């Protein structure tokens, strides 16, 4: 039944209270039109990776069919066209996060690589033994481990902002962690395990007062919220294309130009140099200094197409729909017998982590999958969060703008099957 609704014309939309019509947009996502185990697919694992609209798929395919050539290195027509498209994608990303200049947009493999870049390039060249880094207890492993590696290399100390039972940073705890040795604050804009939106603007102001830089992990923020890096005033901002409906293998590091200028390259190779001599080499200008080797050109172009797509839908509308669906989903799940939501911050995005009495998340995941409902179960690469809540894992439904109230209903119905199996 859901499938026929998906294919029906825009004339009969199922609207939410925001007047947003997710099903009209869902038609742009071919993967979402399939059945799984004989049931219409209900994809609620968007925080792991989001699906791709036809326009992104087409942009990548068209690049390989019509344009493929290496960038920044040929005078022939294809190379010039590929370079232009690659750099146009960079400018789209710049506009999307409101950065001042394309020089501040470095293409990477994703959030993980972006954070490692900051740690190894900025961290290694600017931090000294005894310096301190502040992170939060709700970080993804990719915003913990790069700092641990750096801490080992340089003998730094890592301080952790604790979280409350709701999954909010403990009020007041943050400011007490600063010392004259604090150099860096590395923080999730939005938590992938809890959905919490952190007050990163205010936290950045405080960090700057203490002369510490701020690195934001925006992986879960960019698909849900409008992001303006100049307004946030963060020093670095990292995110992945694949969570914002773009290709895998491509992501972004935004950095303030003055900082990027003074940072050493972190990988050497082609494209990142100006001159190479055995007596020494000189570096290319920003952002190419940080893009050694042939980049993921098709990925960048696909990311550019994802930005176009999101701007067409409208990030404000996406954010409103996300809140509407989150409210509905929280309400429905709260009424499921024996279910407890993990992460109930007053400011959240559409991430619904939960546990059920006496039933392990893995069993929940397998059983709802048989109903066509795709959710994630496990520690969500946030083991410290699981430890904090004293649970081995959670089940997590994570929403995108193409999800509907009916998707939540399908999840709730599938959870009834879970109860049945374990009755």
């Amino acid at each position: 039944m859901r499938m026929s609704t998906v294919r029906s014309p825009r004339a009969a939309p199922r609207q939410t209270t925001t007047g947003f019509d997710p099903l009209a947009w869902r038609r742009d996502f071919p993967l979402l039109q399939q059945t799984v185990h004989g049931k219409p697919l209900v994809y609620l694992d968007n925080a792991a990776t989001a699906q791709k609209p036809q326009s992104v798929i087409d942009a990548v395919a068209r690049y390989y069919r019509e344009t493929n050539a290496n960038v920044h290195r040929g005078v022939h027509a294809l190379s010039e066209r590929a370079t232009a498209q690659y750099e146009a994608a960079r400018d789209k990303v710049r506009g999307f996060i409101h950065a001042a200049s394309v020089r501040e947009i470095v293409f990477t493999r994703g959030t993980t690589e972006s954070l490692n870049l900051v740690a190894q390039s900025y961290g290694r060249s600017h931090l000294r033994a005894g310096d301190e880094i502040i992170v939060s207890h709700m970080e993804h492993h990719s915003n913990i481990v790069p700092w641990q590696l750096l801490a080992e290399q340089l003998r730094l100390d890592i301080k952790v902002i604790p979280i409350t039972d709701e999954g909010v940073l403990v009020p007041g705890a943050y400011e007490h962690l600063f010392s004259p040795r604090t150099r860096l604050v590395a923080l999730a804009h939005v938590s992938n395990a809890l959905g919490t939106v952190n007050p990163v603007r205010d936290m950045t102001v405080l960090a700057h007062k203490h002369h510490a830089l701020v690195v934001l992990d925006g992986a879960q923020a960019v698909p849900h919220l409008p992001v303006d890096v100049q307004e946030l005033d963060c020093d670095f901002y990292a995110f992945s294309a694949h969570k914002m409906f773009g290709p895998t293998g491509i992501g972004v590091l935004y950095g303030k130009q003055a900082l990027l200028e003074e940072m050493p390259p972190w990988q050497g190779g082609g494209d990142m140099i100006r001159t190479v001599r055995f007596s020494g080499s000189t570096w290319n200008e920003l952002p190419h200094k940080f893009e050694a080797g042939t980049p993921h050109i098709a990925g960048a172009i696909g990311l550019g197409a994802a930005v176009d797509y999101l701007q067409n839908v409208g990030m404000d509308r996406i954010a409103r729909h996300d809140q509407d669906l989150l409210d509905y989903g929280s309400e429905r799940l709260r009424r499921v017998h024996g279910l407890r939501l993990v992460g109930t911050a007053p400011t959240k995005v559409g991430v619904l982590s939960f546990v059920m009495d006496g039933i392990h998340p893995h069993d929940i995941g397998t059983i709802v999958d048989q109903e066509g409902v795709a959710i994630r179960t496990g520690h969500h690469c946030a083991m410290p969060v699981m430890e904090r809540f004293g649970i081995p894992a959670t089940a997590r439904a994570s929403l995108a703008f193409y999800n509907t109230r009916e998707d939540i209903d399908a999840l709730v119905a599938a959870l009834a099957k879970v109860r049945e199996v374990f009755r």
Partner: protein
Amino acid sequence: MDLRELYQDVIVDHNRSPRNFRKMADATRTQEGFNPLCGDKLMLYLKLDGDRISDVSFEGSGCAISVASASLMSQNVKGKTLAEAEQLFGRMRALLTGDGQDLDLEALGNLAALSGVSEYPARVKCASLCWHALNAALRPPAQARPAEVSTE
């Protein structure tokens, strides 16, 4: 695929009331097991009388499949010799990985309830964890044994 082939009554029952679920103070051998992917943890205890396993117990936390598998295992290896237990490990590995076409399911008794697992690749590790722990515990501690077996 019918879910009931995975969650057979025996599995649901052993998950709800796991057998031999306790610490063993006077165990001859202990072995830890860990599944990093799902966070399943297990501590296996064996008591040996010569080369016979006179008692088995376990503790830990995990999904229904991993708890039921450990519970069923504890019932089935109690009283076996080390060599017999090792043979059983081989048969169960074949069953769980879908390599068990030649196995005599009837001879496996209630362990046959785990035969549906191989159809769910993501769950094979859950059911295998305790068996890998057993296999490690069958060797004497003198032969350098891993402090912890892992399904990775």
